């Protein structure tokens, strides 16, 4: 009887040993150890309203993947892993993007997620990623509201929107003759309101006087009313916050109605590649913030700002757009965090990002407890003779063109 039990026990042990071994073989750890691959998923806007920017971010991701795989892959606990990407097109729709993110996590079982383009979409996908405890590095999503929801796995490459145009006020206040007044014209939208609030607040702190504040609704195409009012008030600085078509209509009509100021700015638009082709010489003198610029002088573990751009230029024959730089650096951040975490465990990667304080070709990265990058400062470009010239951070030999000549004298 005892003998029989012993036999059964042996058999049980052998069988459970075999089952365990089989389970181990089947487990993803063993498979990844064999193939040494990391699967990264990204839902970005390849079509739809944000297709242009979405595709530029995706190009940044793709280029990073090619580059990192060329170097042998990402180092996880001493073993190099090749990166395999899965992309989905979110059609610039937040709901679609959230669904696709869930599919990436639950069906495609990716190891990591790289974020979508824009605040509106990142707000939706990060809620899904948070639910599953997945880290999201948002490459271009800096609406303050996205980071005010108590999320623990969300990180922003950029500083917040309220910081976007602060350097413009600071640069302007240093000019001679010193500007005294400013006017704000802003689109009533979560992207533009915070940037304008930020620059308005800073301007008031610097002793400038606000003489006009106008908030226009989405789909406004006729600005002649606002411009007529502004013309009478003659502000020194004209802060305009709106999307691409808004800014084009606004500045065209400013020229038509001969509305002049000493300095003009836009939220991002004049830093967009299309601004130069659409506005031609009428786009000159306008300022905008850029998240990154080839003339910045940051140093990083793999690239400096200049060498990254050289690498890009060699590959594509053109400067890297700042959207692509955001995508590329999001990849680098993920890679640095995994390196430090020594594992693909999401909470360890999150902790590594939390403790990060490092400079890259893109700028510095140090995150607060909400995941905001508190060390990033936007660059400011001014369009000078059809080129977007980086004027802040200041560089030797580069000057802000101020005051801007009136339209009729250009």
């Amino acid at each position, binding site marked *: 009887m005892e003998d029989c039990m012993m036999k059964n026990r042996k058999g049980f042990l052998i069988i459970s040993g075999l089952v365990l071994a089989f389970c181990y073989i089947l487990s993803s750890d063993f498979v990844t150890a064999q193939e040494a691959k990391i699967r990264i998923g990204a839902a970005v806007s390849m*079509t739809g309203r944000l297709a242009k920017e979405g595709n530029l971010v995706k190009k940044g991701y793709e280029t990073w993947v090619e580059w990192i795989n060329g170097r042998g892959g990402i180092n996880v606990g001493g073993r190099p892993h090749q990166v395999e990407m899965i992309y989905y097109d979110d059609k610039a729709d937040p709901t679609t993007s959230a669904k696709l993110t869930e599919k990436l996590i639950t069906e495609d079982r990716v190891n990591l997620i790289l974020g979508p383009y824009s605040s509106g979409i990142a707000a939706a996908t990060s809620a899904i990623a948070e639910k599953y405890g997945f880290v999201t590095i948002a490459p271009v999503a800096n609406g303050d509201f996205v980071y005010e929801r108590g999320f623990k796995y969300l990180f922003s490459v950029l500083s917040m929107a309220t910081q976007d145009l602060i350097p413009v006020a600071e640069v302007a206040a240093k000019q001679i003759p010193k500007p005294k007044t400013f006017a704000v014209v802003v689109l009533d939208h979560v992207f533009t309101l915070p940037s304008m609030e930020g620059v308005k607040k800073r301007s008031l702190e610097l002793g400038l006087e606000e003489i006009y504040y106008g908030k226009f609704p989405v789909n406004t195409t006729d600005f002649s009313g606002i411009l007529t009012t502004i013309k009478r008030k003659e502000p020194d600085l004209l802060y305009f916050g709106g999307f691409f078509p808004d800014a084009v209509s606004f500045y*065209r009509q400013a020229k*038509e109605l001969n509305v002049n100021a000493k300095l003009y700015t836009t939220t991002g638009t004049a830093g967009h590649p299309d601004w130069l082709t659409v506005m031609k010489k009428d786009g000159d003198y306008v300022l905008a913030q850029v998240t990154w610029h080839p003339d910045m002088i940051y140093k990083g573990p793999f690239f400096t700002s200049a060498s990254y751009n050289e690498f890009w230029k060699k590959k594509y024959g053109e400067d890297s757009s700042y959207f692509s730089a955001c995508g590329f650096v999001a990849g680098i951040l993920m890679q640095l965090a995994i390196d430090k975490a020594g594992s693909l465990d999401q909470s360890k990667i999150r902790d590594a990002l939390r403790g990060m304080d490092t400079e890259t070709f893109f700028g510095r990265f140090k995150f607060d407890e909400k995941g905001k990058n508190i060390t990033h400062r936007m660059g400011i470009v001014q369009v000078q003779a059809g080129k977007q010239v980086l004027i802040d951070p200041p560089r030797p030999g580069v000057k802000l063109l101020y005051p801007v000549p009136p339209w009729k004298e250009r």
Partner: protein
Amino acid sequence: MEVSDFFEASMNFISNHEKRDHMLGQVLVNGVLQGGFYACIGVSFSIVFGIMRIINLAQGTQIILGAYVTFTISHLIGLDPFLTLPISIVSLFFLGYMIQKYVINLVAKGGLIITSLLTFGLNLVLINIALLIWKADFKATNPWYMGMSFEVAGATIPYVRLIIFVIAILLTVFLEFFFRKTETGNSIRATSLNPKAAQLMGIDIGKTYSLTFAISSALGGAMGTLFILAKPVSPFTGGDFLIILFSVAILGGLGSIEGALLSGIILGMIEAFSVMLLGIEYQKIALNLIYLSILIFLPKGLMGKRFYG
């Protein structure tokens, strides 16, 4: 803005009215110039509704297609954008004709809801075709005379806007003439009054409908050419026109060309003056309040009739 702010703004306006005197001329000019454009796009929408009882939700995108025709031609062969006007009129005329004949006519008997659903879908198809061909980037024309203006009695008048205004008004007047004085125009009006009777009189209803839709589309195309001279377009810009299209058509009276002309100018004025009096925040609110009031108190519009046409 709070109510007190609003009150303060109004008081300011009254006390500052002298300062604003020289602004008044400018605001009038702004309103009229914008109104001319509104009138013409309103007409293009209104005739299809008035005559065929079809709400063409794709009209905004058809306007944009006209803009793309102008953009493509002026970029490919360097033709002045204004000179592409006949080309966008003709190409959109054909597109409109084909859409009516081969798509809408198939369900024309299905009633307002079915045709509206169809034009809604058609709008999506057109947007996606535009996306395939021209991508999502904004396209614009930038002729050398862009932004040039002259002054009359203290008011600045941009050349481009003035020409746009004149062309829009001319096209509208021409259309009115076409409907009133030509045989084809009369047969279109007859069809709208009583399709069955018109058919008994030997009018080919299908053809008349196709022609009406084509004319509306062609007018839209022309407006697209004018629009891209003032503003950049993307395949999605068409959606922005819908509220204006509805407002002009309803305020003027569905199907009424002279009504649309009048209401376009009125809406342009309301927009311009609401910015001056209340601020830009209230521009669209003022517009929508007027639209709502018209629907409640004057549902036939300013010049609407019991019968369309």
